[in-house]
């Protein structure tokens, strides 16, 4: 399905910028509170990979084996380097984009329903293309993501993530239930009835919800600092002194 989408949305890049390793690692290392955002410049030119050369097959054998637009975009990516290099060359176009928004009538499935997944795919490519090469358009974009119904978002993005988290919670829960039972403690039903058991279950669920990856622990710490930093800056002048309004 994604192949057919790739053939309708074209993303022509005349000059493909080589991705410098420096830029990629700078992007990966960027955390929310970091201060340095390096504007990557083209440093070394690597030999173009098969994706950039247009594939390893030729002629008839290559028929219908085009790389998807997103894949080509991914090969050419890395923020500023691409932007700088492709700024004048890249042109995003999609026949289904009409008057600044997606023409939903062109996204119909066989039974007449709108193919929301295709709309999302098209918008993903659109946003990525414009992010990498901010283009100048005559018309203003009008597409609002809220027209895609909530259940499409849930089904496509939330459910896989929920499945993963539930799976982790279940594995942790099963392991601990077994260990506690083996240690002479309560069985599964007793676990749910004791206060300690209920607390433990609650903590586990909360932990799995907020800490999906170990990185999230750092992120939560940073967020906590951020939330109060501005207040500290404002109150700096009152350190050691009392506010007149506090005396009243």
């Amino acid at each position, binding site marked *: 399905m994604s192949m057919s989408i790739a053939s309708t949305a074209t993303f022509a890049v005349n000059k493909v910028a080589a991705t410098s390793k420096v830029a990629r690692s700078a992007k990966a290392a960027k955390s929310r509170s970091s201060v*340095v955002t390096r504007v990557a410049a083209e440093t070394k030119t690597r030999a173009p990979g098969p994706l950039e050369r247009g594939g390893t097959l030729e002629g008839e054998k290559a028929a219908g084996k085009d790389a998807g637009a997103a894949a080509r975009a991914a090969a050419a990516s890395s923020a500023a380097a691409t932007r700088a290099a492709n700024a004048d060359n890249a042109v995003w176009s999609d026949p289904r984009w009409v008057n600044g928004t997606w023409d939903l009538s062109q996204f119909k499935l066989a039974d007449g329903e709108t193919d929301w997944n295709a709309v999302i795919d098209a918008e993903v490519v659109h946003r990525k293309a414009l992010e990498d090469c901010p283009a100048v358009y005559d018309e203003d*974009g009008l597409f609002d993501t809220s027209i895609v119904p909530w259940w499409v978002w849930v089904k496509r993005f939330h459910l896989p993530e929920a499945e993963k988290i539930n799976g982790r919670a279940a594995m942790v829960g099963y392991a601990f239930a077994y260990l506690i039972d083996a240690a002479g403690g309560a069985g599964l039903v007793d676990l749910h009835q004791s206060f300690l058991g209920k607390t433990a279950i609650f903590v586990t669920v909360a932990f799995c919800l907020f800490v999906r990856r170990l990185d999230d622990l750092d992120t939560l710490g940073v967020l906590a600092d951020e939330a109060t930093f501005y207040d500290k800056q404002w109150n700096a002048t009152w350190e050691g002194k009392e506010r007149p309004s506090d005396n009243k």
Partner: protein
Amino acid sequence: MDNCKPCGGAIPLCMVGEFDLPEEIIDRKVTKMKMISPSNRAVDVGQTLNDKEYIGMCRREVMDDFLRKRAKSLGTNLVNGLFMKLEDPGQGNGAITIHYNDYEADSKVGEPKTMEVDCIIGADGANSRVAKNIDAGEYDYAIAFQERIKIPDEKMEYYKDLAEMYVGDDVSPDFYGWVFPKYDHVAVGTGTVVNKTAIKTYQAAMRKRAEEKCAGGKIIRVEAHPIPEHPRPRRVQGRVTLVGDAAGYVTKCSGEGIYFAAKSGRMAAEAVVERSENGTKEVDESDLRLYLDKWDRKYWATYKVLDILQKVFYRSNPAREAFVEMCADEYVQKMTFDSYLYKTVVPGNPLDDMKLLGNTVASIVRANALRAAGKSQVNV
């Protein structure tokens, strides 16, 4: 006193009323604003304004001159000079001596002079010397870069009462790019805190985004200035206090400072007048702290809300997309303009607020989902 301050020049409606500004100093009344997201989604903001509401665009040299002349006519002693340093013998030990270079006689070479004063209100901007003298401390600042471009009349017509705001990683990693109409030209600029060295790259990207709309324009002036991000650690020291940019009273998110500079100046002066009992008593630090406390209590909420908005919505491109999407909502526009034009944080209808919170979270989640899908999609 004849400098031309580099400034966006936007003043809220309440400033015109509170400071009795005449209509002549307002070059343009902006009633429409267009916000443009990284993926070129454009949202028109301003439908909720009534006929009497507008954002005033003014030339700083005109407005500053008017205020100065008015102060003089009310009995102020204007001195055309450059502050060099101050000497404070301490509370109760006599007046403060100001050393300055007087430019009254010759505008090129200043004549060193001194003056004795009872207290000092430092209003000398982001690079304040008064602040340095009293060791007020440093602040983080953004660098704002702006080019004034004279564009052909037909293009200028488009910007008759419209200001544009561009958000995106290409234009600024933590601020926004703008096209503000001035009296016969537009000011195109951008700013950043975290990546000041790349400001020229951001400006180039900003010019590219506004390319079509400013085609055929000529750059007539280039300006850059620092914008404080938070108040200085010590805003008062003995009988000296700071107001405006010198104190660091610039909001986050929008970078607005003119109104707060004027208002803080007024509040500081009022505190001095009140506590010195019309100039009969000596003023000390606790009197000046009265102004600080009043200021903090009155405007803390405004600053905090804008700080939260900046942290949430200027974070990344998906966040900016969500920001622009949210601005399409009428309730958001109404709340934004009410708080900007009248400088009060109005709570509004709690039910609508809950809906707004829900919509905000939904927008951000959707925008992030689209970006995540873009990253992981390798459909070869």
